């Protein structure tokens, strides 16, 4: 089982987002970066599949600068065997997908796993594009995954439910919970991660059709109107006549 897990480096989910330089730069001061929560599920399931198969190799790939090596080492500590960092700014989903596909081409990965989307730019395009670029099927969001030989059985979330599918490897999958439980690195994992290979590769040229202009923060809500607990009728009347939502 040869698995590629794509990980994004994103602000911790508790982060407050702010911008500087006239809303053109993301302020990373004070922000803790983590492995994308959905990618973290994909990594955890990859490790379980490798353990179940009794053999295999897991490569973690990230597109980003040297500052991302902390989270890449964490992926190695959790259980990836080796890692690759594409030395470039992850400017958009199309760019990232092209870097991943260029790396994966010809390496015969049975599975390419990643989160359903990154929680920073939320494009949700990378798994679909990687599949198309490599000419292999892609599915998302996958919430359960089992492998039997060269066949995958998986559950995909659909609106108001789920469908169970069977597909042959190789596959590109966008993952989400409850595909696996997040894994916490062990002390032994942390020690061994220091010596596992982390290769740095320069990016391929990509001509993206998207150009960033600037950021915006949502307008802050006006302060909350408090209503006495003994007067729920007032709330009903406000929802009806003031907010006009019921």
């Amino acid at each position, binding site marked *: 089982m040869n698995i590629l897990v794509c990980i994004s480096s994103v602000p911790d989910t508790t982060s407050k987002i702010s911008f500087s330089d006239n809303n053109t730069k993301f302020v990373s001061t004070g922000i803790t970066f983590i492995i994308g929560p959905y990618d973290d599920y994909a990594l955890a399931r990859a490790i379980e599949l490798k353990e179940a198969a009794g053999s295999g190799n897991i490569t973690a790939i990230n597109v980003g600068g040297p500052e991302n090596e902390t989270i890449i080492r964490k992926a190695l500590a959790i259980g990836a065997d080796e890692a690759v960092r594409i030395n470039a700014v992850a400017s958009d989903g199309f760019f990232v997908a092209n870097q991943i596909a260029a790396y994966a081409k010809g390496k015969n990965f049975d599975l390419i796993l990643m989160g359903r989307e990154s929680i920073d730019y939320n494009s949700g395009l990378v798994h679909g594009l990687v599949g198309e670029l490599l000419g292999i099927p892609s599915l998302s969001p996958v919430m359960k995954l089992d492998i039997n030989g060269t066949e995958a059985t998986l559950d995909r979330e659909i*609106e108001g439910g789920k469908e169970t599918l069977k597909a042959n490897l190789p596959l590109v999958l966008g993952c989400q919970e409850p595909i696996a439980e997040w894994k916490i690195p062990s002390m032994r994992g942390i020690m061994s991660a220091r010596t596992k290979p982390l290769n740095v590769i320069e990016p391929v040229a990509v001509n993206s059709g998207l150009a960033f202009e600037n950021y915006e923060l949502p307008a802050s809500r006006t302060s909350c109107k408090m209503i006495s607990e003994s007067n729920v009728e007032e709330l009903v009347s406000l929802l009806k006549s003031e907010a006009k939502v019921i």
Partner: protein
Amino acid sequence: MSVLVFLESSDSQIKKSSIEALVYGRSIAAKTGGALLALVVGEVSNISEAAAYGAEKVLQITDARFAQTDAQAYSEAIADAAKQNSVHTMVLAKSSLTDSLTAKLAFLTYATAATNVVSLPDFSNGFVVKRSIFTGKAFELVKINSENKVISIKKNAVAITESAAAGEVVPFSPILSDKAFSIKTISLEKATGDVLLADAEIVVSGGRGLKGPENWGLITGLAKVLGAATGCSKPVSDLNWRPHHEHVGQTGIKVSPNLYIAIGISGAIQHVAGISSSKVIVAINKDADAPIFKAATYGIVGDAFEIVPKLTAAIKAAQ
């Protein structure tokens, strides 16, 4: 140089979010001077609405295999419709189905995709759209420079207004590759009759303050009188009190209803991110300092077990 809108249906009805996509597409077509086309799959009872909202031509696929929502087949069909009708811009309403086909469609049509778009394009400086990023915590403006574009819009990206057009319905048989319908569906579980969370106009959500799954009647009872969908916070789905597909938040379902009622939910930043595009938020919590009140429009501090039954009765009485 036309605009093509993919109309998704649910229970043989064109979804409201797809009507929004149609109005969105109409605005682009008016600006760029092209025709507005729509693509619909299967029999839909309200197909005339496509004309009422401006579609000049409605391509209808009747191939029964499309009952299986195979992303490959759907993206090939939309791409083929685009190719045959000199379409440069494709508009989709964000959903589970379109999320799974947007990237494929962009690839097949040599287009640039922009997802989570929340407003009409600004043409004053090219083609600039606003996207929701950091899971509702911020926006970015991006310029799409390529001629072909795929735009996936979030709910409420545009206000629905009518503008009647010919709306001629034309049967359409897309050319599909052998990759279409190659993935086998083993089984399908779908809740029927319930209001779908992502599409709901009103959502009633419960948190750990409800103390246990046995108390969920409070949530479903209120939801029932409002015709609302039910949701929950992450801890509630992690504890298996409620199924995962009800989890609202940064790593769950993101909702944009007109009314979101949070009951016994403290309002962790991850939960608020998933509800921030709601029009009105009502918070009911016994802790006056709970962060949910910072995100809420209306708040009641008190015991949910006393307030919710009273609220349910008051809404019933007011109907």
